[in-house]
């Protein structure tokens, strides 16, 4: 009886307030979509880190013709210099940080370059001797890049030491910036959602003031009086959260999956199923927002 009665009250409340309920749904939908977008960007960053950090290396580029770095004053790298560098890599002081390394010749570098820029006309104008040979080092702990850099930068025959991770970090910082923007927008929209839910609950409480007055008089419990209002807000917000989750799933399915993944086959994009991990979080967030704001509103506008 209680359950059917409360459900009936909720249904009549939602029916009386359709336009407000729709606006609550839309506002929570938009705000939670932004929250979810920030979440997706973070998932994507984590995914790319996992994918790239295993593959990304520290590269020690060796001097070629025309190198102007201080270590290259004696011209292109010699066989002895190269052997000395290999010895240094094998020495205990350095080896403890190194997982493995290999030497990349100019020809190999050229092959990689051709692969990477296969679609670009630049390939035709590059020859192997324009590309430097290098040591490619895979570190046990990528954070220890500084030690390698300090040890090798000043060695003769070394043009420069590059942490490829830093190139990725730049990309990640762009993505982090984007997710920060999404979070800020989401924050503003969430404030809108909270205020709108509060207004909706107020209107709903006002339009049913006769009922609640009688409920109070005949001794209905606080829960019995307030629960229909709280659930009204919660249901609207939950619908908004479901719509937001569906939108995010759509983005990862059709935009990331069908469009971006084809354009950038090398990049590991997050899958639609990974995006769905966000759905319960968004729904929980929506319910929490609506629940808290309606309880606070009722405390002020619905005397029990």
């Amino acid at each position, binding site marked *: *009886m209680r359950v059917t009665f409360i459900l009936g009250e909720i249904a009549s409340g939602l029916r009386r307030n359709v336009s407000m309920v729709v606006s609550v749904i839309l506002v929570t939908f938009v705000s939670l979509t932004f929250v979810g977008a920030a979440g997706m960007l973070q998932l994507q960053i984590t995914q790319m880190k996992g994918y790239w950090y295993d593959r990304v290396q520290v590269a020690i580029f060796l001097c070629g013709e025309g190198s102007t770095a201080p270590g290259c004053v004696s011209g292109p790298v010699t066989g002895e210099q190269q052997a000395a560098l290999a010895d240094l890599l094998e020495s205990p002081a350095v080896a403890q940080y190194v997982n493995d390394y290999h030497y990349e010749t100019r020809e190999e570098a050229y092959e990689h370059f051709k692969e990477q820029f296969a679609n670009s006309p630049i390939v035709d104008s590059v020859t192997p001797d324009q590309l430097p040979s290098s040591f490619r080092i895979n570190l046990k702990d990528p954070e220890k890049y500084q030690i390698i850099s300090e040890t090798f930068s000043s060695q003769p025959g070394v043009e420069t030491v590059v942490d490829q991770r830093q190139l990725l970090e730049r990309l990640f910082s762009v993505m982090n910036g984007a997710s920060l923007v999404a979070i800020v927008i989401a924050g503003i929209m969430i404030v809108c959602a909270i205020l709108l839910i509060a207004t909706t609950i107020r209107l709903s409480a006002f339009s049913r003031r006769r009922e609640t007055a009688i409920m109070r*008089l*005949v*001794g209905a419990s606080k829960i019995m009086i307030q629960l229909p209002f709280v659930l009204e807000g919660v249901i609207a917000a939950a619908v908004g959260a479901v719509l937001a989750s569906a939108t995010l799933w759509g983005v990862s399915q059709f935009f990331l999956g069908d469009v971006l993944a084809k354009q950038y086959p090398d990049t590991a994009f997050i899958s639609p199923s990974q995006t769905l991990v966000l759905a319960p979080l968004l729904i929980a967030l929506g319910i929490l927002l609506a629940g808290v704001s309606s309880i606070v509103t009722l405390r002020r506008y619905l005397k029990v």
Partner: protein
Amino acid sequence: MIRFENVTKVYDRKARPALDSVSLEIQRGEFAFLVGASGSGKSTFLRLVLREDRATSGGVFVAGQNVASLSSWRVPRLRRGIGVVFQDFRLLPQKTVFANVAFAMQVIGRNRSIIRDAVPEVLKTVGLEGKEHRMPHELSGGEQQRVAIARAVVNRPGILLADEPTGNLDPSTSQGIMAVLDKINQNGTTVVMATHDTDIVNSMRKRVIELQDGHVIRDEARALYTSLIPSVPPAERRDGEGGRA
């Protein structure tokens, strides 16, 4: 059933109190009229019993419980033991007679089967048999008030508070309402009725408690609306009454 011990209620510190050190007791099963001019404190009395307000000082005891010290989550339980009827009926316009009465049972979680039995029974008590499916606007004022009374007593409260229940009704309809209230009182419910209706008070010959400016100036059994005994000004009365319970 209802006991006031030196109850004072102040709404506004600058104005005089709505009730000033009122002490009285209404026994279980009694029928009492609360009379007095507007602003004399009748409504405040009823609000204190219902715990719509808390007394500024003194004790308000309803069925042995001090209402003033009742924690707010226990207030619903108190109110389940009290039925209330108003001058303006306060029915839900979009619900039928049956639904209006049933509403009072639904919201305190009564079973559907109990509601199906109790509502027709109470409608019979108030004289509305066969009008279960009418809407409030299809009923006369007297009939609407009967619905309100039915709703107030359907949960079998020990106390029925009526705040000028005949205020909107013509004299003959009012007599019908009084007959219903009397019947409810005969069944053992304590009835407290605030009223301005001289004829009704005079015809019922029940206990009359007269309030003036927040003081009880008269409390007589089987009395009339206006006292046969010349009244004493409240100021003198307070000095002289001393040990009166």
